């Protein structure tokens, strides 16, 4: 492992394991998250199918929650993106960054500043599957160019790993946030 880490172009050994040596695990992990989200969605009552998930939060303009939800997200999003970016060379990465971004999104939703999107929106579904699809696409690219699924062509490992992480970040943020919001409980209109 220590002998081969240089070939990946990634400085953080954990990221190298996750996305180079055991990339299949990480792909399946993203699939498990997506399947869990589908499982949660499928528990919706018939009239709420494709509706907004979670409870309806009312905005209380003078509460400390609203104040925090206005002040904290810029800092939290910066921290999340930083943690995502340093994942190549230091502890961090897409899951950790996505967790922070998702918590900021949930904070804004719980304060009532914004509403969770109805689950039948097409853009939402595109963003959800984008990360795993890019991951699978890179895997097939490895089949064509390097002879094995998820094998990286020599010299291309770092850019491809960054591309996978970049595509997975928004997908994971949405999946984690929507998993926390839970079952669709409201129809689309309110």
């Amino acid at each position: 492992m220590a002998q081969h880490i240089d070939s990946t172009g990634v400085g953080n050994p954990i990221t190298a394991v996750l996305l180079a040596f055991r990339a299949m695990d990480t792909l399946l992990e993203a699939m498990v998250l997506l399947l869990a989200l589908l499982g949660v969605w499928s528990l919706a009552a018939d009239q709420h199918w494709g509706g907004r998930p979670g409870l309806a939060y009312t905005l209380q303009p003078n509460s400390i929650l609203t104040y925090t939800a206005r002040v904290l997200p810029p800092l939290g999003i910066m921290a999340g993106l930083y943690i995502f970016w340093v994942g190549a060379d230091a502890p961090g990465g897409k899951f950790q960054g996505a967790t922070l971004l998702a918590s900021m999104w949930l904070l804004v939703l719980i304060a009532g500043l914004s509403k969770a999107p109805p689950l039948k929106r097409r853009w939402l579904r595109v963003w959800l599957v984008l990360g795993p699809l890019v991951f699978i696409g890179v895997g097939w690219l490895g089949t064509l160019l390097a002879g094995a699924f998820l094998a990286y062509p020599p010299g291309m490992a770092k850019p491809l790993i960054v591309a996978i992480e970049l595509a997975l970040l928004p997908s994971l943020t949405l999946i984690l946030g929507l998993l926390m919001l839970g079952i669709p409980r409201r129809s689309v209109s309110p």
Partner: protein
Amino acid sequence: MNTATLFGLCASALIGMGVYGLLTNPQPLRKIIALNIIGSGIFLLFGAIAYRGAGAGMGSDPVPQALLITGIVVAFSATALAIALLLRLYEVTGSVSLASDEANPPDHKPGAPE
């Protein structure tokens, strides 16, 4: 006793507590929490294994640590799905118990405070 052993023993204690909770508590929510405590113990165990397997100039063995991250994410998604199932069970039946209705009448009605 070195650090890895201490972490390992703590991990065993957590797993033991979790198994005890899983076996003795009939409520599904407590079973979910107990399962998460078992999970925490296993994550700690992986951390101890990674710490013990340090070598080749690395602070700790990265393979168990990478598996650990994967495990945490999978445990999170499983817990979220289990909680969603439990909430749906409560919505449909008005009870959060797995016992059959004849033997144990539900102690919760919809709308009653938790």
